[in-house]
């Protein structure tokens, strides 16, 4: 398997503080309402406890990205060296086809630029030997970066409840499921 960087979301550690989402905004300064990384609370049907569990999600840098396949102007590329899916905004004509087509809602419309944009895995930071802004900012270590080519089998899952199962696109993000707190009765 070729090198494929992926986000590893540890929902057991995530406290839903939104620091990752804020770090992304602080780094890229997208206009108001344009959110590349979002923190989603799990429904009570999935996590039945008064405390909440969360998924921090951005672009999944899929193996077979829908955005790349449907873009009529070839504004998306997938980097050979690490599998990161990059949107080249200067090529984008703002047709919105990627926004409509991505099952994870990763590309967003920037009303100022009148073009789409999305998480780029901070590839310029990766090239400089740094971690993506969201990962660097996470105070609990719930968000980390893995290479799927080297990831040892463990308790990570690809399609947890609350995350659409799209085998054709094969999203790279992996999750560690949250455990329900143990009730100790005296």
């Amino acid at each position, binding site marked *: 398997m070729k090198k494929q960087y992926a986000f590893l979301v540890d929902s057991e550690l995530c406290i839903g503080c939104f620091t990752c989402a804020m770090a992304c905004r602080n780094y890229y300064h997208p206009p108001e309402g344009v959110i590349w990384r979002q923190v989603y609370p799990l429904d009570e049907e999935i996590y039945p406890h008064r405390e909440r569990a969360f998924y921090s999600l951005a672009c999944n840098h899929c193996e077979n990205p829908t955005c790349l396949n449907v873009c*009529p102007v070839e504004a998306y590329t997938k980097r050979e060296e690490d599998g990161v899916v990059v949107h080249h905004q200067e090529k984008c004509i703002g047709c919105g086809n990627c926004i*409509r*087509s991505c099952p994870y809602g990763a590309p967003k*419309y920037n009303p100022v630029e*009148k073009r789409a944009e999305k998480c780029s895995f901070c590839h310029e930071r990766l090239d400089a030997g740094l971690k993506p802004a969201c990962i660097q900012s996470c105070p609990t270590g719930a968000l980390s970066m893995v290479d799927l080519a080297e990831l040892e089998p463990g308790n990570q899952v690809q399609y947890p409840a609350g*995350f659409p*199962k799209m085998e054709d696109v094969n999203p790279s993000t992996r999750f560690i499921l949250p455990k329900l707190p143990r009730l100790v009765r005296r």
Partner: protein
Amino acid sequence: MQSMEFPLVLFTVLSQAAVGLALMGAVRVSSGPQGRSPRREWIMVAGLIGLGLLASLFHLGHPTGAPRALVHLSTAWLSREVLLAGTFAVLAVLAVLVSKTEVNPVLAWAGSLVGLGLILSAGMTYAPPAFPAVNNALPATFFLLSAVTLGAGFGSWFASESRQPLMGGIFGAGLLVALVLYLVVPCVWLSGGAVMRMTGQTWLGSGFYWVHVAVLAACLLVFRLTKGIPVWLPVLLLLGELAGRAGFFADTIHTAANLGGLY
């Protein structure tokens, strides 16, 4: 509720009306004497596709980049849709230029085949995995029904007296199939997965949906009562199709709307 995508509503409905009109013209050319003023009919085809293409530019953030939408023909159905829409428009203009009293059957059928390709590619463009309810053959079927009903309706304006029953038969059958399909499909979605069920509920609670269904039923009733296609009826159907298409874009739910919930 998502964006109504008004430029896309205009582009898809007007281009499908143009394709339907060309298809019905080709059917009449192949089945008997030519209708009234074939040149005027092709002027209408060219006008509809021209208006549709013009409207589609308003959907783009950067309309001047529209010609570059042709570069990804290998995988992007939108690129193929743009290519086929452009080719159809060129054929329509060519037909206007060459048809004086009669339509060239080769040109008529070439336009129809390219038009059907346009409907297929549009159906594939609007059937992405992000919309489970329409990630199938439904968009292409909806679009084909729009083309057939609008084409037969507007085609009656140009058909000779002897071909009016043919146009009426296609119009009535198309309306009946469309009405049944639009009534059944949202009910089927209610028994699907979470996002499909949300789509069914949204459609059934949508004014766009009910206006469309009411217009289809009204057109079918008028057709049955008058035993023909009154001259104003295709215009009413066009308005109904525009409302239905607005609902198609606004009321079909995206998978991302339920992130964190059960699928």
